[in-house]
Structure formats: C-alpha cells, structure tokens
C-alpha cells in the first residue's frame, strides 16, 4: 500500500480553502455554518494524515483523540450557532447578510 499522504493532504488544502471561501462569500447564515464545518473537517483530515505517516510505522493515537474531541466541539459550536441564527431570525427577520451591489 503506497503512502496515501500526498492525496489526502492535497484534499485537506482544497477543502480548507473551499470552506473558507464559502464562509466569506455565502450570504445565508446556515450555509456559513456548513462551510465552517467543511473547513474544520479539512483540518481534522490533515491531523489524521500526519498521524498515519510516522517513521517507525506505528500509528500515532494522539491526533486521533484530538480529532474526536474536535468533532464533538465542532458539533457543539454548530448547534450553538444554529440556535443563535434562529433567534436572530426570530427577532430581526434577517437570515442573510445583505447584498451590497450599490
């Protein structure tokens, strides 16, 4: 089995910047949350790819634990973000950042 490291690190880079572009460019708040999660997934991918690639061949379990922790924290943050978005929509009726073509 050849080293999968290059393929997945390139994927991590692509996903990170796609998600980042989405966070800045998407107007709907819910979509920004999705884009943020894609960015987080890219960071996790890079961590686990580094864990798989060590000199002595033993797979490093510490980044695995960090990624599991990070997943749960990301879900908590997303849940909080969704609740906040919903409350903002209830109070102000605003669900998107306004377009500024003017």
């Amino acid at each position, binding site marked *: 089995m*050849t080293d*999968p490291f290059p*393929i*997945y*690190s390139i*994927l991590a*880079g*692509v996903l*990170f*910047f*796609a*998600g*980042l*572009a*989405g966070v800045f*460019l998407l107007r*709907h*708040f*819910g*979509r920004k*949350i*999705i884009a943020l*999660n*894609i960015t987080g*997934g890219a960071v*996790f991918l*890079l961590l*686990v790819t580094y*864990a*798989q690639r*060590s*000199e*002595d061949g033993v*797979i*490093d*379990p*510490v980044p*695995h*634990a960090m990624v*599991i*922790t990070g*997943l*749960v*924290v990301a*879900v*908590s943050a*997303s*849940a*909080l973000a*969704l*609740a*906040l*978005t*919903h*409350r903002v*929509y209830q*109070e102000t009726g605003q*669900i*998107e950042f306004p*377009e500024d073509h003017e």
Partner: protein
Amino acid sequence: MNAGMILDVLLAGFIAWLAFKSLTVPDFFRAIIFFIAFGLGMALAWARLVAPDVAIAEAAIGAGLLGVLLIKSSHALPEKASPKVSLSRRWLIGFILFGALGGGIHFSSLVLNAPAAEGLGALATKHLESSGVEHPVTAVLLNYRAYDTWLEIAVLMLALWVILAIRGPSAPAESTPVTKPGIQFRTALSRGLVPIIILVSGYLLWAGKFAPGGAFQAGVVLAAGMILASLGGILPPTRWDGRLGLILGLAGFMAFLLVAIFTSLTRFTMLNYPPTQAGSWILFLEVVGTLSIAFLLFAFYLYVVAPPSSGQTRTDDSATQSSPP
C-alpha cells in the same frame, strides 16, 4: 499506481465534489444533504487512513447528529431568493473554485515538503499496560489526556446552557408524544430499533477497552436512540430542561471533578489513576460520561430551534408539516 492509490484518488475527488456541491447548490436543504454525504465520505477517508475510532465518530456525530440538527433547523432558517441569482451564483462558484484550487496547491506545496517525524505512537504503546485499557486511542482519551475529555464534556454543557438561555418565548418545555396519523410506523420502528441501539451503545462502550469504541461513540449512538424514541413518540412526556436535565447534564462533569479531586488529594497529581485500578476508574468515568454525552446531544436536538408556532401541530418532526388536528 496500485489499487489503493486509485481508490484514494477517486475518494478524494468524490469528497471534494460533495463539498463543492454542498457549498454552491441553490437550495439550503439540498446543501444539507450534500453535507451529510460529505461527512460519510470523510468517514471513508478516515477508514483509509487507518483511523477507525475517528471514522465511527465522524459517521455518528459529524454526519449523523449534525445532519439531524441542520435538517431540524432548515425549516426555521428559510432562504430568501436573491433577485440577481444567476450572476452572483457564478461569481460565488468561481471564487470557491479558485480559492480551493489555488489555496490547495499553495498549501500542499508547503505541507508535502514537511518531513515525516517520529510520532507519539511508540510512547503511547510503551505505557499501555499501566494505563488500564488495551486500545491506544482510548488510553489517550481517558488516561493520558483525560483532562481534555473532561473539558470537552464541559464544552458540551456550556453550549447547551447557552442554547437554553437564549431560547425565545415560544420554545417547548417538554418533548410531547405526537398523535398525528401516520405515526404508527415511526412508533413501530422506534420500538424495534431503540433496544438494539441501547445494546449497540453498551457494546461500543465496553469495546472501547480493546477495540475502536469508547465513551463518545457510545454516547452518540445512545443520543441517536433517544432522538429516534422521541420521533416515535415512545418517550414519556418529561421536562428535559428541569431537574432531570440538570442531573444528567452535569453528571459527566461532576464524575471527572470527583475523580480529579480524589486523585489530587491522594496522589498529588490530578487525574493520575493508581495503575492497578486504572481500568475501573476509566470504566466509571466512561459510563457516566456516556450518559451525560447522550443526554446533552439529545438536548441539542430538542432545543436548537423552536418548533413552528401557531397553526401547526407541535411535533418533533418538522419535515412533514400538515394542517392542525
């Protein structure tokens, strides 16, 4: 160029396509579905990178639970149609593509030149016998870095507290069993699946000692079982944000706190279990942690958005909206 590499290339391309579609497809609900598929694709990537714990956690939490939260709030966050949809959509797609490709290439050129380093794997396996478990990731989560796990449960609790604190006035107080017609199927499904889910959760908790598994995976599966039970209307009407919720939510944190206090007093280092009894301490923390995590994630599902107010039946399933009874 062997079969593994072909699989990796295809999988990476598929994951990138799913992420791109979830960012650019016009309908918010469809974007959520693409995101759930992206999460499952990532779970396959974890499996390819020999990270089975992370694969289970991603499939359960990242794709499953987060997908459920997003779907539940999708009706409450409607997307207003933009007047100039075609031009801005093309700019958006262009920017995302440019950002992805350009950034990815630049980033990868930095990363690919990084040398392979000696990881912590050898160190983790060296102390495995005295850690109380036989699986390295569980040892890291609950022994070497137990402090991180403790604070992670605290993060879950804090998020739930803030969600409950900012609730609007039309928020539900309890999970009511629904009485719509057509609920019999969901009830039958819940009655059949929830016992199996409880068993699987217990098995995952126990298997964390020697195989991929552990408290988080078991907690998420149990939370999924509770969500299924509430959708099927087989949960008794209870106030989940009252005293019961307080006890269940705080239990995990308090268990870690008690163990930390005890070990600081007797062994002068926080969360430093005595090596011969480490297994039992870890099991105790995992059991209480699983119950806490399951309840906290279930409460996320219940309270993340308020159900639609007047004119609709109060139900946990917001995807099928029908006329009031």
